């Protein structure tokens, strides 16, 4: 069973995430963590807009929040999110390649903490954040999904992710939620063995 779905996106992310979350059932069993690039003073409006699109419960992360099934944990503005076993920590370390929250930082921690039980998802975006982190998730035996750049509002982020993580599954936006549901029904560990390099 997978432990976490880690999602990264920037430009165009709201509409892509709305579609992704809207396709998941209320009892989706894997906690979801989202890093969406946003202004450093932006408020909880993003979470409210996402909440309107989904039956899952959307919340902005506070330090050491437990990751729970049925929840969508959104990175707050101006903090990095790091995943620990069962919960999320926040930090205000320097922005990484101009981003805080940084998708790479969150993905790296997902890879280190959850290894083969992490799923990384890269959606539309106008920079290359997330590509390195997605490669780390694969290195550690995890699963990687990338929105098909042809279906992305801005293809830069998905293209960079595909380049850095060539074995990632590339799927059109409307196929991502069904694929996550499939993955949530399978065991993660046996597949991890075939990922051995």
């Amino acid at each position: 069973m997978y432990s976490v779905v880690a999602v990264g996106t920037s430009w165009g992310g709201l509409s892509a995430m709305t579609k992704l979350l809207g396709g998941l059932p209320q009892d989706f069993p894997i906690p979801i963590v989202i890093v969406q690039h946003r202004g450093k003073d932006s408020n909880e409006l993003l979470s409210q807009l996402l909440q309107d699109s989904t039956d899952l419960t959307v919340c902005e992360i506070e330090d050491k929040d437990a990751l729970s099934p049925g929840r969508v944990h959104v990175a707050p503005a101006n903090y990095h999110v790091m995943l620990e076993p069962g919960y999320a920590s926040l930090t205000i370390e320097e922005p990484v390649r101009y981003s805080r929250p940084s998708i790479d930082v969150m993905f790296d921690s997902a890879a280190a903490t959850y290894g083969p039980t992490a799923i990384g998802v890269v959606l539309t975006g106008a920079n290359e954040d997330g590509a390195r982190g997605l490669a780390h998730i694969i290195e550690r035996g995890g699963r990687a999904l990338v929105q098909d750049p042809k279906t992305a509002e801005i293809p830069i982020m998905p293209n960079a992710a595909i380049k850095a993580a060539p074995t990632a599954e590339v799927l059109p936006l409307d196929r991502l939620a069904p694929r996550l549901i499939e993955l949530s029904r399978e065991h993660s560990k046996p597949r991890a063995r075939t990922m051995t390099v």
Partner: protein
Amino acid sequence: MALQIAEPPTSPQAAAEPPEAFKPDLERIEIELLLEGIFRHYGFDFRSYAYASIRRRLWKRIEEEGLSSISALQERVLHEPEMMEKLLLDLSINVTAMFRDPGFYVTFREQVVPLLKTYPFIRLWHAGCSTGEEVYSMAILLREEGLYDRARIYATDINEVVLQRAKAGIFPLERMQEYTDNYIRAGGKKSFSEYYTAKYGGALFDQSLTKNVVFSQHNLVTDRSFSEFNVILCRNVLIYFDKTLQSKVHSLFYDSLAMFGVLVLGSKETLRFMSHEECYQQIAAPEKIFRKVK
């Protein structure tokens, strides 16, 4: 404490043949050994810091030194005090800003200042003050509210190097535009430029702002309470600690606060699940400003 990473393997095959690249347990052993070594040899205790963040910063140092493992870093750190110095700066996050989260300062003016005005003398403690930007911000606020002359601010940090910078009160000129914006949005009553002059290649802050400030080294992990305070400010410091250590520091804060004293945390920090949670009332949600009520 017992630390656990990732889930136990779910099938016998998985246990017998883990992916080669995935060795979190070995890495955790290495990191715990390094932190234990640092504690026993140098006395700095990072053993209860938030793990993912420590791990990331250790790897940054490893990459900058051209090393390839935590154990290789351990060899250098334990035998070369200069490497420990470097790592100490890496491990203590000193990212801060003047009037960070302007909304907090507005709320502090509206909700906390009136309380403080009822006291003849007030003591504030900035725990983990880093390079002092927030100390100067609070000094400016207190002066504008007519409270500065009866206030004493104790500004502490574990790190002597950053305290020296805080005392000097020279901040980068290139950040003054950002700080001016913050100051205005924080409800500042004057022109921000009145508080500094361009000097020594930076913005030198009005030295009278530190007339009532005591800068001192204090370690939240090992040191005890040193006075009783009306306000304790500790924003975005405890996020670097694990839950056990957070709880311990909250006991220290509770013991150091006067009855009806005010505790200020960062905007994404919480008292949830802390042993003293029920002793505080949040007085200005969503800001993390709490009042000790029992």
